[in-house]
């Protein structure tokens, strides 16, 4: 069986990719996708820790399911926001969405 470190490394890598996506992408949808990556990286950790540390209780799996549900809801709200902004400004480039200043 592969050690837990590998899973954790995959999760950390995935999280870092998500963070990078969120910080570096200019497309709002891509940012949303970055967020999804970070959530799923967390899910990998949860499942990995469940399997290796406490396989008798289903806490980690249930937690991961909750995260998925919240991620789905978040994606729905996020996409709706993006569509609204797109309708308004014909763009989803976050560099142009900069009204919240001074």
């Amino acid at each position, binding site marked *: 069986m592969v050690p837990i470190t590998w899973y954790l490394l995959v999760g950390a890598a995935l999280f870092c990719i998500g*963070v990078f996506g*969120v*910080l570096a992408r200019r497309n709002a949808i891509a*940012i949303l996708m970055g967020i999804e990556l970070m959530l799923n990286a967390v899910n990998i950790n949860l499942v990995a820790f469940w399997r290796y540390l406490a396989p008798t209780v289903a806490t980690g799996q249930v937690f991961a399911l909750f995260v998925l549900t919240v991620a789905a809801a978040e994606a729905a709200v996020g996409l709706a926001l993006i569509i609204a902004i797109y309708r308004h400004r014909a763009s989803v480039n*976050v*560099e142009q*969405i*900069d*009204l*919240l*200043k*001074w």
Partner: protein
Amino acid sequence: MTHETLSTLTWLIPVLPLAAFFAILLLTRKYHALSHTLAIGAIGISLVLAQIIFWTVVPGGGAHLAEEPIRGTYDWMPTGSSALQIGVMVDPLTAIMLFMVPIACFLIIFYSVGYSNFDKQPDPHDHPGQPPHNGREPLYSRFFAFLSLFAAAMLTLVVADNLLLLFVGWEVMGLCSYLLIGFWYARNYDDPGQITPRQAAIKAFLTTRVGDVFMLIGIVALYSLTGTLSFREIFTPEMTQKLGVLPSVIVGIPAAQFIFFLLFAGTIGKSAQFPLHTWLPDAMEGPTPVSAMIHAAAMVSAGVYFVIRMFPLLAGSATPESPPTFAVMAFIGAFSALMASTIALAQNDVKKVLAYSTIAQLGYMIAALGIGAYVAAAFHLITHAFFKALLFLGSGSIIHGVEHGAHHTGEHLDPQDMLNMGGLRKKMPLTFWTFLVGGLSLAGFPLITAGFWSKDEILADALAHAPLVFWVLAISAFLTAFYTMRQISLTFLGKPRTESAAHAKESHWTMTAPLVILAVFALLAGFVGVKPDFPGLGPILRPGATGTAFESFVAPTIENVVRLEVPAFEVTPLVASIVVALGGLLVGWWVYARRPLAAGQPDPLTKLGGLHTFLKNKWYFDEVYDWAFVQPSIRLGVAVYKWIDRWLIDGLLHAIARGAWRLAEAFRAFDRVVINGGVDAFVNGIKAFGRWFREVQTGWVQQYLYVAVLGLLVLAAIYLALMS
């Protein structure tokens, strides 16, 4: 009637005209008929009350009244332990004044209805403050208000039981004379040398003020020595004796005489005696009823009344054998009488002649008091008031008649100049006969006129006590008779010298009725002064009595402190007064009436040359006063203005102002540079920093996140470093 009732009635006498004054001025100014009804009604009720009081006290006799006068006194102004009082008192002297003053005031105010042309409509061409041309007086109501105040002030003065209230009445009267002499305040003359009413008003006010200042000092001195101003308390034997021996500030003169002199100075001003007489002739600028008010009923009489009232003050320095005398007063009175009589000779203004005759007659009274003839002075005061009121109202009627003629013919002339008159006897018969009565009374026509009896008494007293005064007064009496005849001749006799005089018309009945009433008094008032030992008349009028009716009533007023001695009947003064009166009238008749002056003919007196000019210019008193007092005052005023006011005070003020200005400038600079600058710099710094620092907030959410992640990493690194 009880004592309290009488005292209340006495209070009401001055209060009613005062109320009328306020009512007219505040409420009924627009309603002329109501205004004069109020004024006449108020003084009318006062007249009735005064008569009630007079006839109530007369049967009791003067001695009883002097002992127990009608009194009503209240505390007025508390002054520490005591209080200044306000109160009324009716003693014999006040009683006879209460007989005379309201009658004269009432008739004068009544006469003013006709004089101010109530029977005519207001003329829109007339200006307020100028005499009406042929319409009703524009300031009709105001005139009656002022007259009422005048009467109220005089009555206050008469009933006052202390010097303070008397002084109040005295000064209010001064105010009224100012207001009424200057009643036609907007009047101007073509001749700039002629005094205008407003100048005359100021002159009268200031001249009397000179005397009043001394009088006030006298009152204060009296108060500080005696601690009271009440007549009853001052005029006690103890008090007058004490004042008679107390030394005054001037060595050798007792306090009583010194204070009396100060008080007498007030009278010199008010009664227009030399040297403060110059205001009185100019006071003729006022409407004629005012002249009558000033000359007969009130003002000048008040001066003499005051001296009579204060006369007992001299008692302390007198011996029991002789009445007190005061040489200064005798001199001033006699001199005024002589001087005014001579000036009256050369005056052509019908009212100015009367004005100077007033000075002369008041001089008689003052001289009489100066030689101790207390009763004679009081008697002459009463008779003079009647015949002088009559003469003034008569002259007003004459002027009115001539003005009517001037209006009718369109002539421009001085309606007061006697040379413009003549022949008015037929045009104005009532005025003529009453004026004749007044004139004869003034001249002292024997037996049938009041003036004869009072003047005779003064002359008799003068001969008994001071022969020199007698001669001066006798000459003055001769001159008086002469100029009276001159006035009557020039005015009424002969043929009219101008068209206006020819078209003169008898005045309205409201003006002639008072004349007739006053004429009755001018004839009959003298008979209370007939001596019991006067041949023929005496035994009929005063059988078995000692002293005249007037004397036996008035003399007790001061008998508790002064023993008065009225000389018995003597032939010499009687002959003298008959001779001077008839002689003067005869000479006057011979010069003026035998061949009446024709139009354009000069006055026969001008043949006197320089003397006539001297008299016509009133002994140059005005010029001398102008040179001695008025011009130096003006120069002093200019100097004070230039050097003290402009240079010293203004300079000082300007220096202070400039200093303050400079200081303020400095503070302002400090304020601007340091305080404002500091605050501004601080604020600008904050602002600049904010402007620079806000760049941090870009609005890019990613950037914020970026910073957050970096921060997180940093914190994590620190955490890890600390843990290991």
